[in-house]
């Protein structure tokens, strides 16, 4: 009798447990509905949703496949992708920052784009070579394909240039610093340039670009971090010096945590220059600055380039698109990728977002023929370099980005930033990165 009661309790618990677990189980997906996690490309998630839904109506009309769009901010995207990779519950198709391509490829969460699948998309050759270089580890089929192309360029305020008597954009780094100095008038709250000193992603990008100009090797052939070098240090020094030594950057910028805030400083005329990606164009417009008021030139390099230095003016920036391995609807998902990378949609979407098409056959659209976008697309195609496509890339961004952020904090609080400090900060970052605590396979 006692046993019977005990087993009764156990049965009760099991029934409760099973009902809970079945509650967790994924609902059976509708065959013809895809879930799409879109990154936030426009001014707001609402705008993104509107733009995408308009295009997906065409897609649904042609293929009968419905698309359920969720727009996810950049701050949350990586964590959400990680979460869905772990749980196996997630969307069918997802956007990702292209610098994460190799790190996310290592998780095995995405379907590889084999030669056959690339043929479905019209072949590898359609895509820009530089954008294609940022899609996964070399020697493996890409785990994502490019979707929106971006590159860095220097935005400048034409009126402020005129007022300071600057007739043409600077061509090398020392001219760049001189121009910034000419624009700086602290008493009028006007600065030569603005930057996001507390954003670790931005900082890591600048360390990468300027370090490469100095000829720094970030990783050896085994993917081991080697960035704590004098060359890398002089690249980082050039960036931090803009605030500490040349004083052409407002110390307040040491607190700026996102590129968007820096865009605000530029658009309101508090700073004459801004090094940013072309995705900022939309934000500059939204802040009330019309297209005729600003111009763009490529990020200058030292002249002459240091021994072994490369004329890197941007990293290969942009957004990629990938298909989840857990998707129960892979064929439809590939169909969606094909739609979004088609010449027609590339032309429409990139025009609306102010980004660059990643396929060469979409450049016929006159919208991409403005001076600014021609400059950005030339930078992307000719003088940008992909960040190392190794699984540890995300750790490079966090460790180096945080180190540079701390250096800006020093510079902002009026403490000197000597080259020893920079070397030490990089060395610490490298130690952290190397001793990743089992960050290898």
């Amino acid at each position, binding site marked *: 009798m006692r046993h*019977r*009661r005990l087993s*009764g*309790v156990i049965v*009760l*618990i099991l029934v*409760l*447990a099973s009902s*809970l677990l079945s509650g967790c189980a994924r609902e059976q997906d509708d065959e013809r509905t895809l879930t799409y996690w879109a990154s936030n490309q426009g001014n707001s998630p609402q705008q993104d949703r509107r733009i995408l839904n308009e295009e997906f109506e065409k897609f649904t009309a042609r293929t009968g496949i419905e698309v359920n769009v969720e727009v996810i901010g950049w701050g949350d995207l990586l*964590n959400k992708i*990680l979460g869905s*990779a*772990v749980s*196996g519950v997630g969307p069918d198709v997802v956007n990702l920052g292209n610098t994460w391509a190799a*790190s*996310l490829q*290592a*998780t*095995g*969460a995405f379907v590889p784009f084999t030669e056959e699948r690339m043929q479905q998309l019209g072949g590898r050759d359609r895509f820009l070579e530089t954008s294609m270089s940022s899609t996964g580890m070399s020697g493996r089929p890409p785990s994502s394909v490019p979707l929106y192309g971006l590159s860095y360029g220097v935005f400048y305020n034409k009126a402020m240039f005129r007022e300071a008597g600057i007739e043409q954009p600077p061509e090398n780094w020392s001219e760049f610093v001189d121009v910034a100095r000419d624009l700086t008038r602290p008493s009028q709250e006007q600065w030569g340039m603005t930057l996001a000193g*507390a*954003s*670790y992603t931005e900082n890591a990008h600048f360390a990468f670009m300027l370090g490469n100009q100095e000829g720094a090797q970030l990783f050896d052939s085994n993917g081991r971090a080697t960035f704590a070098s004098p060359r890398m240090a002089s690249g980082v020094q050039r960036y931090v010096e803009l605030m500490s030594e040349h004083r052409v950057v*407002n*110390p*307040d910028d*040491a*607190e700026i*945590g996102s590129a968007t805030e820096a865009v605000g400083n530029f658009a309101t005329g508090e700073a004459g220059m801004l090094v940013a990606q072309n995705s900022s164009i939309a934000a500059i417009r939204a802040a009330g600055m019309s297209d005729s008021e600003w111009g763009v030139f490529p990020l200058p390099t030292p002249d002459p380039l240091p021994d072994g230095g490369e004329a890197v003016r941007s990293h290969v920036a942009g957004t990629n698109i990938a298909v989840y*391995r857990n998707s129960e609807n892979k064929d439809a998902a590939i169909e969606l990728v094909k739609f979004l990378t088609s010449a027609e949609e590339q032309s429409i979407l990139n025009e609306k977002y102010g980004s660059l098409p990643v396929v060469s056959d979409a450049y016929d659209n006159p919208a991409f023929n403005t001076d600014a976008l021609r400059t950005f697309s030339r930078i992307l195609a000719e003088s940008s370099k992909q960040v190392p496509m190794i*699984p540890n890339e*995300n*750790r490079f961004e*966090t460790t180096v980005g*945080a180190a540079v*952020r*701390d250096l800006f*904090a*020093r510079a*902002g*609080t009026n403490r000197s930033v000597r080259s020893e400090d920079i070397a030490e900060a990089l060395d*610490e970052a490298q*130690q*952290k990165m190397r*001793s*990743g*605590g*089992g*960050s*290898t*396979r």
Partner: protein
Amino acid sequence: MTVTSTASTAPPSGAEPNGSRARRPRISKRSVPYLLLAPALFFELLVHIVPMLGGLWMSFLRLNQFFLREWMSAPFTGLQNYRFALDFDGAAGVELFQSFAVTIAFAVITVGVSWVMGLAAALFLQRSFPGRTLLRGLFLVPYALPIYTSVMIWKFMLDRSDGMVNATLSDLGLGGERFWLLGNNAFLSLTVTAIWRLWPFAFLALMAGLQSIPTDIYDAAAVDGAGLWQQIRTITVPMLQPVSQVLILVLFLWTFNDFNVPYLLFDQAVPSSANLISIHIYQNSFLTWNFGLGSAMSTLLLLFLLVITAGYLMLTSRRSRNA
């Protein structure tokens, strides 16, 4: 007599007849409490104990980006994650230690100041005066505000260029132009924000405790010539001890584990002077995708808090037994 016999034999109208009741399995009185507890126990296991054991198990695995998707097959590495976290010769171990020291300082200061402020406010409001209820309500506002809102307000106030703190300081001729969210000042900002949020709880608990102290003790003390300060020291504080004991423990556990305040105040740019241990663990698992290492650090934190709690309870219960 008739009444009792009716009650015991004839069921109330509408109930089942006697025959079916006999066939139903009888639940004995002894199993009722267990049956009532079972759902709670089950959910406690599900929500607390199972994830904790899961975390413990994860801390022995090499659970990084290569194994996230098939985490069931992540390789077992024994104590390697612990060895790495506690290797004070390496950069990571030193950072963990620094973060631990910052957290201890933060928790001790926050709890201490909150307790003192709570007691002062509770004593102040004990006597009746016009506007007392209003003031009491006002004091509780920080605790009632949603944490996100209150911390974001502090973030705006502490901004260097157009924050209220710097503006006030420069109006008073005390400088200004200072970074409150960078460098070593960040610790101060973090502590002040946390105290502001937390002290109303101490106030609330101590105010309740004060109600239980009989007023005639104070009267007797006053007759014996004890001043206000003496009364507080010899009557109020000792008699509040049972409340304070629990309060301080709870506050300590809350602040030691605080994640929200630093995370909201500094975003992802947490300066090392405000790098609390929970933030450190988050960054070591979510930004670098090394969940094995993060779990090992969490387990160490759990062990530390268990030791502290057990030690504190042992100490305070012995003291109160001696008293």
